[in-house]
């Protein structure tokens, strides 16, 4: 019997939906959040937080004078923060010149275009959707997690402190609160930009940010541990090294114990991911190459060679179920890791390369069809007809051969962003 129902949410642009053929993305997100809560890979420039706090401070000071209703007040504050960001991006762009690109500055091309005018406007268009993709969209959630801002974008005590040590300029502050049609000279932008540019951090800013980061014990421990190992090695090796160091620590606290187990899970999860995704990509490549369907019964040395390793890796990953339960106490670890666990169970029992192809293609289909938490059904990249494997559509073809599993990029566990936030990768000045 069908009764009426409220419809499901089904937007076309769910992020990450099409880059995760085997259902490892969501468990990865949970692992990364458990390791360093609050930070994100995309938000890796701490100066954004300082700028955001300054913008939020002048916005809330100005809005208090206006006596507006809740929604109007919020609108006005957002407008001021956005304008402040626009001026700051102009200043950074002009100060950094050619170096501006690759510094994590959002909307640089918009700023460069605006700087072609004799005087830059404060209400130029920055990004297609500044709210979503600019400072507020990318850095406000983190600033809220670091207790620099409230959810209404009002600076908290620590945020006020950060806003006041940020090299602000009263003239720029005034320009940001000014309603529309403001403009600013390039000389002024250059002068301010040299002080506030992205990639730089004052000692006081660094201290405040570090305090904010340390306010969460999980974050604190992760950042402290990251500082103990060199940044020259790749991230996973760095995490492995941390795990080793930590395991040698005597009298570990409960939290440290959980970190050891978490790093175990991360290491084995990534290894199993690496082997599964490289095999999957090899199947994609074979199917792309042949076009009219790759026969999975035909011998493939790479797959045959990798299978015993993948089986072993699946077994060790499954052996960590207790550790997963230990780390994610308040949630169901088996739910979070359902997709990799199911794949590991099947891989563990697999007896031939062609069976492994079946397992991977079948699992991929289930992922795309929403069995492991996707909101809607999506077309599979690969599908099988008898023993032949086909690529579903052109965009899913793989155009470079897969020769080893070393080519697979592991997931990123926010180390770069964390390093930046504790000032390890940045220039900093003393005041």
């Amino acid at each position: 019997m069908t009764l009426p129902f409220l419809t499901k949410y089904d937007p076309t642009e769910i992020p990450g939906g099409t880059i995760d053929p085997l259902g490892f993305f969501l468990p990865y997100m949970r692992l990364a959040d458990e390791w360093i809560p609050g930070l994100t890979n995309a938000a890796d420039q701490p100066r954004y937080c300082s700028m955001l706090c300054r913008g939020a401070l002048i916005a809330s000071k100005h809005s208090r004078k206006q006596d507006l209703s809740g929604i109007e007040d919020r609108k006005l504050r957002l407008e001021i923060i956005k304008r402040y960001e626009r001026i700051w991006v102009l200043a950074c762009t002009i100060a950094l010149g050619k170096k501006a690109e690759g510094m994590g500055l959002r909307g640089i091309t918009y700023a460069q275009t605006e700087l072609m005018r004799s005087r830059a406007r404060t209400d130029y268009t920055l990004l297609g959707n500044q709210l979503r993709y600019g400072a507020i969209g990318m850095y406000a959630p983190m600033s809220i997690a670091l207790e620099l801002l409230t959810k209404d974008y009002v600076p908290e005590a620590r945020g006020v402190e950060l806003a006041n040590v940020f090299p602000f300029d009263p003239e720029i502050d005034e320009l940001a609160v000014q309603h529309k049609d403001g403009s600013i000279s390039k000389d002024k932008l250059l002068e301010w930009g040299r002080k506030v540019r992205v990639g730089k951090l004052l000692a006081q800013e660094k201290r405040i940010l570090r305090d904010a980061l340390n306010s969460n014990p999980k974050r604190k421990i992760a950042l402290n541990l990251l500082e103990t190992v060199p940044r020259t090695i790749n991230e996973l090796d760095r995490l492995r090294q941390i795990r080793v160091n930590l395991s040698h620590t005597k009298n570990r606290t409960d939290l440290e114990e959980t970190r050891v187990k978490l790093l175990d899970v991360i290491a084995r999860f990534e290894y199993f991911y690496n082997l599964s995704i490289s095999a999957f990509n090899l199947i994609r490549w074979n199917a792309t190459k042949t076009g009219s369907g790759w026969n999975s019964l035909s011998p493939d040395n790479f797959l045959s060679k990798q299978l015993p390793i993948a089986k072993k890796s699946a077994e060790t990953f499954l052996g960590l179920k207790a550790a997963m339960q230990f780390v994610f106490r308040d949630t169901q670890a088996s739910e979070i890791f359902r997709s990799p666990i199911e794949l590991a169970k099947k891989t563990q029992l697999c007896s031939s390369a062609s069976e492994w192809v079946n397992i991977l293609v079948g699992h991929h289909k289930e992922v795309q069809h929403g069995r492991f938490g996707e909101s809607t059904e999506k077309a599979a990249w690969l599908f099988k007809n008898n023993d032949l494997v086909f690529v579903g559509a052109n965009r899913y073809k793989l155009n470079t051969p897969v020769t080893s599993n070393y080519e697979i990029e592991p997931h990123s566990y926010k180390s770069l962003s964390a390093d930046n936030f504790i000032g390890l990768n940045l220039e900093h000045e003393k005041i």
Partner: protein
Amino acid sequence: MKKSDRKSLMDLFSPTPEAGTPISFVAATYELETDFFMTDLLPSMLSLGTRRDDLLTSPHIIDQALRDCAVHILLDRSQYADARGVSSRVDLMISSTRVQHSKVYLIYWENLIRAIVTSANLTRDGFRKNREVAWYIDYKVSHSSDVSILRNLIEGLENITEVQLNHDAIKSLHLMHQTAKDWQKSQTKKKVSPLILWGGNEKPLISKILDLWPTQTPVKEAHVVSPFWSKNSGPFEALIHGLKSKNVQEDFVLHLYCQGRGDPDVELRPVFPLEVKRHLAKWPLIDVFLHSCTPKVGSDDVSDLFKRIDERTDRFLHAKVILLLSTEITLAAIGSANFTENGLCRNPDSANIELMAVWILNGKALQDSVIANLLPPTLGKIRLVDVDSKNVFEPSPFSEEPKWPDFVELAELDVTVPKFDWKEKDVTSKISTLSIRYRSPKDKNAKFGFHLGDGITDFLLPSTNITRVEKFDLDIPQTSLLLKSREIFIYWVEAPNGIAFPINLTAETKVDLPVQSIGHKPTEDQLIDYFSGWKDRNQLLEVGLRDPEQGQNVTDNSIGIDQRVIQLYTVRSFVECLQGLKKQLEESTSTDKGMRRAFLCEISPVALANSILENYKQSKRTPVAAGFQILELMRTVSSAKITGNTKTKQQIKKRCIDLLNQIYQQLEENANRELSSPIFQAFKNRLLSGEN
């Protein structure tokens, strides 16, 4: 039903594997968004892949798929502007006198007929983001579903909106109904079926709904979900008086669910007209609560255990639900009608055309299920008596209705020249007939008529006391213009410059229509440009439409340029286009349908080979050049890789190669001497064996 059984509307439009090919789609909606409809909804329904899948390779494939599937859309006059630009093969019918607000979608696939009653319009937000309400029923071969529901839906579409439906739409509806009847194997099993109620006829919709509530059964709670509310007391009075007439006392709790505005993590305030508070004070026994529905995407909205899209806040309430609950009995009404005067209370002459499906359910389990599935998630509720201007948002006023020529019912174009073959005709030849079904506007004495938007062509409509059909014969430029614009501009005393009004093509015209609005078959140059990526479909359209106006083909050489030079350039362009052609062919092979169209229809290697043969026959191409081109086409088709090399797909490819072969043989019959030369034969053998 568990919450996890909820679907998105896109799911309902995606055919099941057994559904087969689409045959027709009839829809009534208030609003249609062209881009969403043409690039997202239709491809999904036509099994061509959706925007999300990125399987869609070329818009002309959708257009050609529509050749086998009749699509008729009835929409409101105020929303016509957003629906401009749909394919010529889609009929747009506009409600001329009343607001068309019902939302019903009837899809007929080869082995499945699906009827959907919902609150969602044909827009991207409606189908993908909003919080809408929906219900559907399927009819398959040997089904035991209740066919009377489908009949009620169809009769409603015909009777309530009768004047706007064209002949083809009525034909599609009747075929659907007949097929559902034919497929029925056994009598309808005892199931909980809804009653279909249309608003806009006999008596107000709210009265019809309340008539179903059992007499003297006390109402414990009433829940109303609506995105829009009237400022006046009308709907509330109608609800309370309606229940009183059934001897039901007014001592129940009334819950009103409104869109919440504000920060969903902190506080939401309902969007609700404060004035209603004053009206409801008349019934002190009724305890009224306002609930703010959250725009936040929650875990119930997606089957996502990980809540990774929790931060999104773009789910807006657009569902319309009325629930009346006694201890055991539940009345659940869902559909298109907002809790407004126009939606529920007006008399037939001024009421909106609305559609609600209503269930009367017995038992606590069903009641719990309905409550869980029809009441939206909220953040905070407030007693109406405690509400003031600080804790509600006043809704924005309704926008004014645009002017509309309500005296015109339909405009239909019938191109009378078979296969659009008007190349040889004089530009002044009458090649089509435009039929206008209308009656006189209120001011009969002022002149009224229509123009084509070209600043030249103007037709007066004769005054009439009854509804009549007036026919106008159109020449080549006028027909071309209409095929491109698909609208005329109707003027009368209130709108002297004219208001755009859609024209539909007759079924016969659609059969002959080669590719969307081109107005004639694309020429060789156009096809080459298209495959080379130099022209998109719209540019193809621009060039295509100039030809008939000039009375000549763009590739004609009537101004004395040396044919050999033209040929040289054409053949060179041809070689350059082969790569693009191959890519397009390969991309089309995800589905049988897409492949059939790309390999065999108007924009295909077969079409290109035919135009080459035609050019040879008109001495615009040497036989060797033409032979070379056709052989190259054969080689390109042979080497195109097919995704999912099924038997059907192999047959399509084979058919394409066979047709190219036949065209080559025709060429050979006419130019045997040149093509049988040893040099050409050697070339042919090498080419077909795959050597360069």
